[in-house]
């Protein structure tokens, strides 16, 4: 174990696990409670378009991912705010178009492209110093915004109409939230990959909300769970030589199923 911790890639991976878990716990809780899971999945997949484009242009793929995921957040957020029907269809279409753009740009880029896979499936062991700084920045932003607007975010998540009647800046809060989802997607991309992001974003919060009554507590427990899943999955991957994103998600998934069974058979838990 000691030997393991002496590897700098392992230190980076553990640090990444901690940083990502914080964002996951806080933003994931809002995503689950506000029922924005689908839109988050859409944003994550669309970000691949940005990764492909960045590869093609020869710039840092993270920049491409930031640009695309923010753009996708705003577009999808706008679509979701429209009361017209078929919002889910439109979000699904954008989801697919984003991915297709990424694949096309990857085709157009000459040379070796194995790296692109790491954005799709993540590789926590390949996290760089630069990634860590970005994660730290996103964490500070997310924690800052959620702390400042906690009561308003809770109010809009619970009952947006009432918040609007109170003349709270409901639309601005929505834009802030969706931008934070976009940024969360980018940092999670390094850890579990774009395809598996929704799982890590939602499972810890979903488990926590089965057992706890307060949003704040759910955020804290979700952060803790997310850390356990990430580190647990990482160790499994290391010792059995497996793909870390898959082990992280499977650990989370098994925990979720277990939690549901426990919750079902627990009389004192909130329904």
């Amino acid at each position: 174990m000691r030997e393991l911790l002496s590897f700098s890639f392992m230190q980076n991976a553990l640090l990444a696990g901690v940083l990502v878990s914080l964002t996951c716990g806080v933003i994931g809780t809002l995503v689950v409670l506000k029922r924005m899971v689908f839109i988050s999945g859409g944003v994550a997949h669309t970000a691949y378009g940005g990764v492909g484009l960045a590869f093609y242009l020869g710039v840092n793929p993270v920049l491409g991912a930031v640009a695309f995921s923010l753009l996708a957040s705003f577009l999808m957020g706008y679509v979701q705010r429209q009361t017209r029907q078929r919002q889910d269809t439109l979000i699904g279409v954008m989801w697919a178009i984003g991915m297709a753009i990424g694949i096309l740009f990857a085709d157009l880029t000459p040379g070796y492209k194995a790296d692109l896979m790491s954005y799709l499936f993540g590789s926590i062991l390949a996290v760089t110093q630069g990634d860590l700084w970005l994660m730290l920045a996103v964490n500070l932003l997310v924690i800052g915004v959620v702390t400042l607007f906690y009561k308003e975010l809770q109010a809009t998540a619970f009952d947006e109409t009432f918040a609007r009647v109170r003349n709270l800046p409901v639309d601005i809060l929505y834009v802030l939230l969706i931008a934070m989802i976009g940024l969360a997607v980018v940092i999670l991309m390094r850890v579990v990959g774009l395809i598996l992001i929704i799982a890590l974003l939602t499972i810890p919060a979903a488990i926590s909300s089965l057992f706890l009554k307060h949003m704040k507590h759910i955020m804290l427990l979700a952060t803790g769970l997310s850390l356990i899943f990430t580190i647990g999955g990482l160790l499994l991957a290391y010792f059995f030589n497996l793909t870390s994103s898959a082990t992280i998600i499977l650990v989370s998934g098994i925990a979720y199923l277990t939690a549901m069974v426990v919750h079902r058979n627990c009389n004192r838990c909130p329904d």
Partner: protein
Amino acid sequence: MTNPKTGQIPHIEISHLVAGYKNENVLKDINLSIHKDDFLGLIGPNGGGKTTLLKVILGLIEPKSGSVKIFGQSPQQGRQHIGYVPQFAVFDNDFPISVRDVVRMGRLSPKRLFRPYTNEDESIVDERLEWVKMLDNKNRSLRELSGGQRQRVYIARALATNPDILLLDEPTVSVDYESRTSIYELLHNINQKGVTILMVSHDLNVISSYVKTIGCLNRTLHYHGEKEITNEMLKSGYNCPVDLIAHGLPHRVLAEHEG
């Protein structure tokens, strides 16, 4: 139009209002003035525009024509004086939140972004919970409560805004019969404390015993400040829920005018 007796401007004044959705006008030529201390119950069939009317008053839907004024202001400005109790069905009943946190929402306003709740807020929250007899449940989770208890919490939240007007959308849907009566009694007390109330409901049986005046809304509004359901309201032209009236209606509603 100012109140002929007091000279005050009406709390809510609606004139020649037409409103609805893209191709359909749900509300046609609505005229209504609600004055201080009124307790008006609007009945009407589903699809008759009850919720739409409330949304227009709250500034959530723009009128197609006509106007809505709250204390002489636009709905977007005037709604700060309104305590709103939304329809039960719109809530996510699984949402993890404590009774106290729900009622605290009534203390939120744009002026206090970035500022935590104060002691004054907390004492208002406690007082409103006491009004609705839910103070003992303050720290419980909303999802542990019965339908009637939840409704009381939403009323407490609306009261926490220190409203001049209380607006309620079907306050007794999914509430058992006994809780209904106690909710109406509660509203009666709130009205006596000087809060004007506008309530829409299809729960005709109980509504008529507690409200001061009753109107019927089915795309057009039939309201002349009556206390009782009049024959005119029952005429098929207004399409008010006649079958409801025919079955199990308390005597007092159809009784002759009291003294």
